[in-house]
């Protein structure tokens, strides 16, 4: 039997490696994606400035995008497998109770942003993490369909056509960037969460070991 003092950490080493690998992969995908976007914009008149893009022009941006995709997809797959096998995804992200969701939002609107127990996520956190994981999966799929619209012609038709999938890929990016703004801002407001993702954080109470 494991005890508290030798219990699993909040963020085991494998998870921390996957988190920071994902951070690098996401950065590569987002910034090179902006370079590709600029070649044929979706929102008329809206470009990403050259200093925000990875790659001097479309070809190197595409090279970065199609290199980063391996890092993103393989690391993401490892994360999902890890989360399912160890039960971490279920343990950390479920259940979400609706009244709790409203309470957390109400608190946040009254500037009560507290996070004393890092090992328990509030309902809004859970929802945001689920949304961003789903957005990540959706990005890999829509990205694959934009890359190979003929090989996956049925999937493209199902999603509304080539230009529709491009827009969906753009929306998915926007969701992830929106998440990142909140995620990074909150981690800076509560720096011990940032430190936990580097050092592993507190040990989990033993009751949480077996679920």
């Amino acid at each position, binding site marked *: 039997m494991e005890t508290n003092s030798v219990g699993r950490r909040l963020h085991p080493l494998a998870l921390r490696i996957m988190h920071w690998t994902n951070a690098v992969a996401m950065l590569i995908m987002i910034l090179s994606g902006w370079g590709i976007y600029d070649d*044929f914009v979706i929102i008329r008149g809206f470009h990403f400035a050259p200093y925000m893009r990875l790659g001097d022009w479309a070809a*190197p941006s595409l*090279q970065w995008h199609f*290199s980063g995709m391996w890092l993103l997809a393989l690391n993401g797959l490892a994360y999902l497998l890890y989360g399912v096998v160890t039960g971490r995804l279920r343990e950390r992200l479920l259940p979400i109770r609706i009244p709790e969701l409203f309470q957390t939002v109400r608190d946040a609107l009254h500037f009560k942003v507290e996070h004393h127990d890092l090992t328990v996520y509030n309902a809004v956190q859970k929802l945001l993490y689920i949304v961003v994981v789903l957005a990540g999966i959706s990005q890999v799929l829509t990205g694959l369909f934009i890359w*190979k619209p*003929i090989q996956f012609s049925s999937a493209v038709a199902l999603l509304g056509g080539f230009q529709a999938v491009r827009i969906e890929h753009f929306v998915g990016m926007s969701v992830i960037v929106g998440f990142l703004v909140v995620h990074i801002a909150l981690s800076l407001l509560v720096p011990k969460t940032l430190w936990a993702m580097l050092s592993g954080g507190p040990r989990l109470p033993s009751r949480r070991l077996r679920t």
Partner: protein
Amino acid sequence: MKSPFRPAKLPDPAILDDHRLLIRLLERRRLIRGGLSLGALTMLTGCDVNSQDSVQKGLRSISAWNDRVQAALFDPTHLAPTYPASMILKPPKFNAYYDITDVKPVHAYDWKLELGGLIADKRPWTIERLATLPETEMVIRHVCVEGWDYIGGWSGPTLRSFLERVGADLRAKYVAFKTADDYPSSIDMATALHPQTLLATKYAGEPLADPFGFPLRLRMATKLGYKNAKWITAIEVTNTYPGGYWENFGESWFAGI
């Protein structure tokens, strides 16, 4: 027969030896000049330039690996969706590495299609002879690497029927194209043999207009726009990687969709 793709006369490499001192002096002068310029500041850090170089090399080798993944993803029996003729965009969208006003039309009277490489019958083809081949028609989506697309209607002999007719080695790796606008291009044999790969001579039932590749262009339903060479003047079947215009600037060679 000699390949139309190789220069007739190669320069003698010995001339580099004869002028070695001159070349070295040129480099030395450039270094001094460079040292005076503000741009030399980046040279002083040294590793920056080097690391940028190795990043580029790394990206290119991943792109080459991705070409192999793309070839594996390509299903030679999967047909691209086709559309009703009423959806054909007239005229088609122009795309090239230069502006539409800079198109140099090809004259029908002195045009011919040269053949090279692993082809049994290398006699050049005229427009009249090409017109005797059975024609296939397809209304397909054109997808540009930039992200735009349109529906176009193309007709002409399939590249497969043409390659079979001239006795090409269909086990070879590549089919390469030379064009009147100096836009070398090449594709894999699997795509060359796909039923939706045409040597197009017509658009929407009419002979190709000048900006769109008259008299002969490639049109594939399974590749990005830039792989479709226009104003074709020569076709070679080869096992030596031929590359292509945009590929030299870092775009993907396979470019399958």
